[in-house]
């Protein structure tokens, strides 16, 4: 384990990635505020604060203050909140962030080597524990305060992912396309707008082109699945649009797949990691129990990659045998020579 107190070039790059990601999450938060009101911002704030406090507190208890990473903790908390519907109760993102930090970040100790992406772990845990809340999206009343799930004022709406799971297509009209582009469709708080996600992806790609090999593999694989095996009868083009814009697929491609903490060094490995994640994601979408599966796909591939890239001794090249006289001299220097 390398010393954490010495800043390295990779640390700077990593910080840059997280800072960029936080800036982009801020843009998504603005969109969430636009559609769902202040409640969206409060959810993000609570979640980020929980993650930050738990990360600091946990590392203090474990005497690993160097491993504390406030920026990454804030990123984790904010991302989890943005992947939830705006109608979530306040404790829901708090539980997700707590699980992400306690179960997926702190036990692995280092801020540089995290075999499992905490955001994916937190969301996966929430999907399993509270599927009704996580997959119930409120109807959009622009700017109006959203009612909490289960309360009297709550009006559920059908998301694109739900439509796909029931083999229903979107309204194939200009308004339908426009809604998808602008984010006026029921979806997780921050991921509704295809236009915004495309802009964020472009920005992140320009800032971290090397990391985006895995993202490219992920999106292309998902697209190939969507075109080859459409779940709607309105055509392959609509299938592609719906699959790509539904749920947290693009968010996963931008923020979860190209994580630096996975330590995927080779571009080939990154590409295969992205393709594998995409394939698992689409298979789970087709055959899984939940309509959204990107977080599970990321977790599964995290495990696979962790097992495949586990530290193995490096292969060494064969060396010619050393000269006997020299070795005798070397042994005699050690004081165990022949008399």
């Amino acid at each position, binding site marked *: 384990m390398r010393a954490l107190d010495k800043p390295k070039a990779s640390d700077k790059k990593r910080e840059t990635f997280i800072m960029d990601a936080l800036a982009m999450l801020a843009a998504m938060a603005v969109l969430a505020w636009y559609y769902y009101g202040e409640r969206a911002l409060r959810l993000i704030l609570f979640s980020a604060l929980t993650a930050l406090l738990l990360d600091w507190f946990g590392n203090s208890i474990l005497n690993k203050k160097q491993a504390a990473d406030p920026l990454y903790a804030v990123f984790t908390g904010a991302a989890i909140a943005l992947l939830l519907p705006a109608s979530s109760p306040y404790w829901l993102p708090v*539980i997700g962030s707590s699980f992400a930090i306690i179960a997926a970040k702190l*036990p692995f100790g280092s801020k540089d080597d995290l075999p499992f992406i905490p955001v994916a772990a937190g969301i996966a*845990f929430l999907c399993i524990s509270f599927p009704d809340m996580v997959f119930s999206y409120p109807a959009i009343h622009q700017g109006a305060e959203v009612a909490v799930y289960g309360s009297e004022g709550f009006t559920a709406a059908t998301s694109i992912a739900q439509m796909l799971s029931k083999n229903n297509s979107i309204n194939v009209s200009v308004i339908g396309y426009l809604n998808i582009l602008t984010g006026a469709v029921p979806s997780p708080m921050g991921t509704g707008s295809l236009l915004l996600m495309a802009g964020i992806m472009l920005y992140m790609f320009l800032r971290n082109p090397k990391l985006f090999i895995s993202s490219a593999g992920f999106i292309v694989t998902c697209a190939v699945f969507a075109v080859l095996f459409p779940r709607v009868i309105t055509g392959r083009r609509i299938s592609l649009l719906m699959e790509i814009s539904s749920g947290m697929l693009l968010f996963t491609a931008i923020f979860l797949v190209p994580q630096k903490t996975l330590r995927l060094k080779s571009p080939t490995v990154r590409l295969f990691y992205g393709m594998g994640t995409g394939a698992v994601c689409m298979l789970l979408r087709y055959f899984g129990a939940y309509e959204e599966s990107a977080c599970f796909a990321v977790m599964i591939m995290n495990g696979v990659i962790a097992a495949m890239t586990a*530290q193995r001794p490096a292969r060494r090249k064969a060396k010619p045998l*050393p000269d006997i006289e020299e*070795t*005798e001299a070397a042994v005699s220097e050690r004081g*165990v*020579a022949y*008399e």
Partner: protein
Amino acid sequence: MNNHNNAPVKRGLYYRAFFRNPVLVEAVGLSSVAAIADSSESALYLAVVTMGLLIITEALTSLFLKRLPAWIRIGIYLLIGTLVVTPFVVIVQKVSSLSLNLFLPLAAVNSIIVLHCERAAIRHNLKGALRDAFAASFGYGVVAILTGIIREFLGAGTVFGIDTGAKINLTGMLMPFGGFLVLGFLAAALSRNLNKIYEGRKSENSFDMSAVEDTTVFALMIANAKYILAQILGLKSNKRNKPIKKKPKAAPVKRAKPDKEGAAAAAGMGAAAGASHEADENAQGGTQADTLSQTEEGKGIEASGTKPEDERQTRPASTLPIVMSQARANTESNVSLDFDEILKELSEFNARRNSDKTEDDKTGGE
């Protein structure tokens, strides 16, 4: 890796149940705990059935199965397990409304039974076997019940079906992955506390490889592989009753005694040295066999009884003790082991030995 040289530990029930806990330290029976112990009640059933099963199986093994070959014994463990578990499952299904599905019957094939029967029961008398069975099943049961309580509390807010008033409903914790998570945290907590209680000691950290460099592991893997190879070659030569060629006497070469650490390391590798000794002579197989055969403390030398005493003295000193002592010193001082250097020394030894052999042949020829 395991440093058991410090303060004495009383190896009683507490030690066996917790310091060598089957689930948290030895990592056996993990899946049954994760699958079955999703509530306090089912965990209690699991603990009871495992205790009964382990005590009966170990007792029968200790009394009757010692002389049977291992492959038959393992089948008999499963039969005993089935015989014990089946009536218990029938009783539980009548008494309790708990749905045990397939998981509790699967306790009959729990790996903890085979492990403890093979490790303890066949090597001890009835009293020892019962003591081991009780301690192991006690440790297993405590962990299972604790896991069940934690999971039930987090998953449903109840403990043994009693509402605690806590409005917690993390249903994910009732799934097997929740069980593995709880077990992971319990194992970490146990390891931390045991290291505090037994200061300077390390529990049997199956997963703690932090003190071991990759190169060391790799070197040991090679050594083990070549030792096994040497053993196989040795056995083959025994089957064929190939006579051992006696070397002509050479002029005795004095050598310095290896240091204490080297001697200790050589003693530790005694079995390897002994077993590979014949392989070295008969099959001429592998550099590691050649190297290992030089240590004098091996059991195999005594067992073979064919080596003259003076011949052993004529053999050049092994570099293995040096290598092992260096490896040990490096591991203790957390200095990374230079694997290239080890290989270099081994190749040096081989080169030296070949030159000695050539000289011996020349002397014999004369």
